[in-house]
């Protein structure tokens, strides 16, 4: 009784006196039962939570409930992998066919458990965690189809990631039993640990007919160029990456023979480059190899690129981290061409109803030798353009385009009537530009066909007090924009302005009836990374009798609005693409002490 009293003073009274180890056993058992009952109760009285966890329990069950397939001993074995396989010999492209999205469809076989006749599984691990992750990622991706008849690529759910956990012959038999196997045609296997001791072959030893292999650790002898896909060996513990494709940007490859020189070689790499490589390697890792998902989807993208090569991702898309994409430019007109003078340029004059001024502009421009055609964009819907007979008689074709709405963006539409590369956008009141100035502008444009080449220059400035951008039209030493009231540019930018202008900039411009020129400067600078070129000295471009220096621009509210435009556009572009320069282009002999009549462009800067 004495001992019992001692116990009861320590433990709960309802627990009978017994040997310590029994007591602990019972306590544990009892609490398990109790917890179980509570849990059951919760399930019973909280039906909604049951619904939401249903899938999980289901899936858990189905690993074991996957149908059991018994492989007969005599079941056929596929042939060993064919080293001569290439996409055009061993891959059935008809299954992929023409596809407007240029995307392959991938089917994943449902899970089965294969055992031999004695009931022994073909793999010691069965479906591994990694392979499950991989297949899950693929089935969640756009590549996935559950319709076996539409599939172009088939992925068995037989896990062959690690050859060492496989029974090779039986695994091969299992593959051959897949209903669409067809000599492994269009089947993709993933393997990370090929061959075991003593040979350590560099590719999976499982006979697999023509199946494609995405493998880690290929040697150049087992890798079928353009057919297999080289992938890294994934380990959640390790950050080491076996770079699958040759990537000089992120790794140093040293042949085994030169192992002894490795230190010298590595030392010789400049520090700047080591940093670049580290950054690049890190990005590769994160983008393509950091998870089974990344590895799986990268593999499919590589195969997709082979099947639809004309829609393939470019080297930059594969290799440039988003941060580089952000600041780098890939100019659409990247070839250094100086187009011949002969085709000339098309002048596009935007006009509303200033007919007299328009006619003067037309007469002036028609004197420029390289003018090929004149296009008048008649932006007034309420009034018809003057009769044909009233227009100035000029030696080049003159076309009038009537617009449906009075919008500023009409001046940048890529009209079919513009048959030259070079476009001269000009306002209907710019009458002071001389023929020499215009011809010279065209010559400069030929040297810089990917830039805006214009006459009045403008600048954007950072207003430190207000903490925002400001528009500047004063006499400055710098230029970051040229006004499109008189500017040459490539017709491509018309197309770009009309169809590729980011955000709501186009609507903003049309709604405010202002800033179309600033928008164009942003667009060109953003895609080319280059500044515009201002040509010839500053002067009055409009009629001398007008009071304004140039443009509508003196009006104060107008200026405020243009500053607003710069801020608005910078936020839409997400950056300030405009580039500031301190130079302008003049003829080689401009202002030189040299007989004027021997100069190509003597009449520059005159009023």
């Amino acid at each position, binding site marked *: 009784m004495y001992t019992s009293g001692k116990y009861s003073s320590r433990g709960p009274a309802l627990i009978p006196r017994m040997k310590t180890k029994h007591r602990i056993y019972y306590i544990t058992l009892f609490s398990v*039962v109790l917890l179980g009952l509570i849990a059951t109760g919760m399930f019973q009285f909280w039906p909604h939570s049951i619904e939401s966890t249903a899938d999980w329990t289901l899936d858990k069950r189905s690993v074991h409930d996957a149908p059991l397939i018994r492989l007969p001993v005599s079941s056929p074995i596929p042939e060993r992998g064919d080293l001569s396989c290439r996409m055009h010999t061993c891959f059935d492209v008809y299954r992929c066919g023409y596809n407007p999205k240029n995307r392959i469809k991938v089917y994943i076989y449902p899970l089965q458990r294969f055992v031999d006749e004695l009931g022994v599984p073909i793999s010691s691990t069965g479906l591994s965690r990694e392979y499950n992750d991989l297949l899950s990622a693929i089935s969640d991706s756009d590549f996935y189809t559950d319709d076996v008849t539409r599939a172009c690529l088939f992925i068995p759910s037989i896990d062959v*990631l690690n050859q060492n956990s496989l029974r090779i012959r039986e695994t091969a038999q299992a593959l051959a039993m897949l209903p669409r196997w067809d000599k492994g045609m269009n089947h993709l296997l993933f393997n990370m640990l090929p061959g075991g001791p003593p040979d350590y072959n560099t590719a999976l030893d499982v006979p697999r007919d023509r199946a494609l292999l995405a493998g880690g650790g290929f040697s150049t002898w087992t890798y079928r160029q353009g057919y297999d896909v080289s992938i890294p060996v994934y380990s959640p513990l390790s950050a080491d990456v076996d770079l699958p494709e040759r990537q*000089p940007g992120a790794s140093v490859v040293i*042949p*085994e023979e030169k192992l002894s020189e490795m230190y010298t070689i590595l030392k010789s790499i400049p520090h700047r480059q080591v940093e670049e490589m580290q950054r690049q390697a890190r990005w590769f890792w994160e983008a393509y190899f950091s998870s089974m998902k990344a590895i799986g989807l990268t593999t499919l993208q590589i195969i997709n690129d082979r099947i639809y090569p004309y829609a393939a991702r470019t080297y930059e898309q594969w290799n440039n981290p988003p941060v580089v994409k952000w600041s780098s430019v890939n100019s659409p007109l990247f070839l250094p061409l100086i187009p011949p003078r002969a085709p000339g340029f098309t002048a596009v004059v935007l006009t509303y109803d200033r007919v007299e001024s328009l006619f003067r502009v037309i007469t002036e421009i028609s004197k420029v030798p390289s003018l090929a055609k004149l296009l008048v964009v008649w932006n007034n819907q309420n009034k018809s353009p003057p009769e044909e007979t009233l227009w100035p008689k000029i030696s080049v074709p003159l076309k009038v385009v009537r617009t449906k709405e009075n919008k500023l963006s009409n001046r940048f539409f890529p009209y079919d009537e513009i048959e030259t590369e070079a476009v001269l956008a000009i306002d209907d009141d710019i009458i002071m530009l001389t023929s020499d100035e215009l011809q010279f502008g065209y010559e400069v444009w030929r040297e810089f066909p990917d830039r805006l080449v214009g006459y009045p*220059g403008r600048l954007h400035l950072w207003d430190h007090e207000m903490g925002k951008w400001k528009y500047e039209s004063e006499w400055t030493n710098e230029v970051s924009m040229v006004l499109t009231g008189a500017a040459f540019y490539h017709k491509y930018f018309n197309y770009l302005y009309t169809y590729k202008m980011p955000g709501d900039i186009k609507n903003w411009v049309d709604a405010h009836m202002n800033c179309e020129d600033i928008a164009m400067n942003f667009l060109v600078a953003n895609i080319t990374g280059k500044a515009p070129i*201002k040509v010839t000295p500053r002067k009055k471009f409009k009629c001398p009798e007008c009071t304004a220096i140039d443009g509508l621009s003196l009006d104060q509210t107008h200026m405020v609005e243009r500053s607003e435009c710069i801020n608005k556009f910078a936020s839409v572009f997400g950056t300030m693409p405009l580039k500031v*320069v301190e130079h302008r282009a*003049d003829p080689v002999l401009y202002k030189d002490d040299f007989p004027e009549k021997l100069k190509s462009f003597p009449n520059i800067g005159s009023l």
Partner: protein
Amino acid sequence: MQAKKRYLILFSTGACLILLFCLGGIQVPLSRRGPGRPHDRRLSGYGPGARWRHLSGYLQPFSSWEQDRSDDLTEHISPRQKRDANSGLYTGKRCRMESCFDFSLCERNGFKVYVYPQQKGEKLSESYQNILSSIEGSRFYTSDPGQACLFVLSLDTLDRDQLSPQYVHNLKAKIQNLPLWNGGKNHIIFNLYSGTWPDYTEDLGFDIGLAMLAKASISTENFRPDFDVSIPLFSKDHPRTGGEKGYLKYNTIPPYRKYMLVFKGKRYLTGIGSDTRNALYHIHNSEDVVLLTTCKHGKDWQKHKDARCDKDNAEYDKYDYREMLYNSTFCLVPRGRRLGSFRFLEALQAACVPVMLSNGWELPFSEIIDWNRAAVIGDERLLLQIPSTVRSIHQDKILSLRQQTQLLWEAYFNSVEKIVLTTLEIIQDRVLLHTSRSNLMWNSLPGGLFTLPQYSTSLRDFPFYYAKLGIKPPSKFTAIIHVVTPLVSQSQPVMKLLVAVAKSQYCAQVIVLWNCEKPLPAKHRWPATSVPVTVIEGESKVISSRFLPYNTIPTDAVFSLDEDTVLSTTEVDFAFTVWQSFPDRIVGYPARSHFWDSNKERWGYTSKWTNDYSMVLTGAAIYHKYYHYLYTTYFPASLKIMVDQMSNCEDILMNFLVSLVTKLPPIKVTQKKQYKETMMGQSSRASRWADPDHFAQRQTCMNKFANWFGTMPLIHSQMRLDPVLFKDQVSILRKKYREIERL
């Protein structure tokens, strides 16, 4: 006690049973309710809707790392050891650089190429002759086999078609007799044609041993990756150097041409390679898809002629090949008897985007060229889809494909020399693995032949990729003043120049290159400046030493100056800001021009005042330091020696080089009058400009260089860059670069 225990066990077992039942009871109805998928049935069968489903229960990892590691300890052998163990296995058809190439030959002297001396009575085809002279004229050439890393036969292996008149007999014996053959190790064999009718195999008819193949029309099956080089098929008229430019003159918008897709060529009625061409008529629509074939070739074509031949032949004669080539957006390049055809290079030059239909062809220089950027790689099996495929290509993509054809044509294909140099550079990249070019260097301007990885493998160190990398050009320069006269007075022009340049806010360092016969002056004789001044003695005092890529140049920008140049700090500052906008060009002050003298049928040089210019003198110019390296490395010794002996024309050669690389003119910036007068009036005592022969020499240089380049790379410009407010009617106080306007 026992009873209690039993009771408790009973109780707990009961509880467990209830628990299990409850859990099971929830599961069973649930799985029946399900989300309406009859998956149980599908699991067992593979109906069209059978799907793979996520599993998220506990699964084992695919590998236990501990176990692998212990395996490695006991069993690890390196692939190299393994290869050595079965040496002989990875030879012949399985050759790789590691197994068939002796890297050690390249270690001592770098990548040098030896060409066997031509044997008497051995006839070489014109094409092979061109290949050999391209190598001999290159910087890789060595006449000493002991220094060589790579060997090239002087036996013509280009045409191995037994029926061809160019076919060289007994090649096998001739090669085996070569004392340096060494089983073909470190040899490269050029070949354009192999095999003959009817099966056109890729066998050369002799044992190439361990030699590498640079071969046209090679198939992926026979191509040994990282060992062979696939070269383009070129005609015997292909120019040796220089080469024609691409035909693209305009980037018209929209980019579509008159035809969408064209082809004009032979149709093989039977035999290898006939299938695709025989099927072309299916997609021919005689409007924008014009695919024409003729049966009329060979002696007995009438014998094999089929029902379509007459109609096809008639249609074929209606169209002009050139007209189609220049006016089509895409050009079909179907395989011929062999995989490659002349159509490929023709289309490339014509900026007609090639649509490849040649399954299994390892495309030319596939190791380095990303063909998806310049061609559409079709599949012969999907011929019928080709029209819809090319029509689906977006116009932006067409614009880019088209420009890329031109880039590649001019970078690697337009002359035999380029094809040969590209082949050699590819092999060099393999040999010097850690200094090899990146994909971007090969596939963007100015191309791999002008981007030497021995200078740097980092894109940032070259003048070509600032925009691509999204980085700004360098903000500092190093001035290099070339001095040839002794220091006698403190008022010498070089003193003023040094002070003016050093005062520039962009100047990082001044290097005085002492190319004067007199010994170096004492340090204190140089004026004190805020930036460091280094004096280095020119190597052998030759003029080319001004373009050596000195390690002491700390910046990427170089301001090259003659000692008698007169410049103000303002002028220096302004020129440098201009250069930052054009970091790949030469930006300078005095300019010169070239012209074609049609009377004398040669190039003329002029220093007169002209309305255009094509050169900027490097006596006062800014350019990227990389051009120093390129000048020193790219040209063969003979050309540099010529310049050194004359002590003249080094600036012309530099202008040739930079324009060849950029395909753009240099940039002239404005200058004060007085400077021009010094240069023009040739008043300086030391000036080599005073020499009357000087000018005539420069004329000769122009023609010699143009001859060596095989082309005239210089390009004219009609503009000069001035400060924005230059000579404008506004207060001089508002002008930043007002000094330039003052006389």
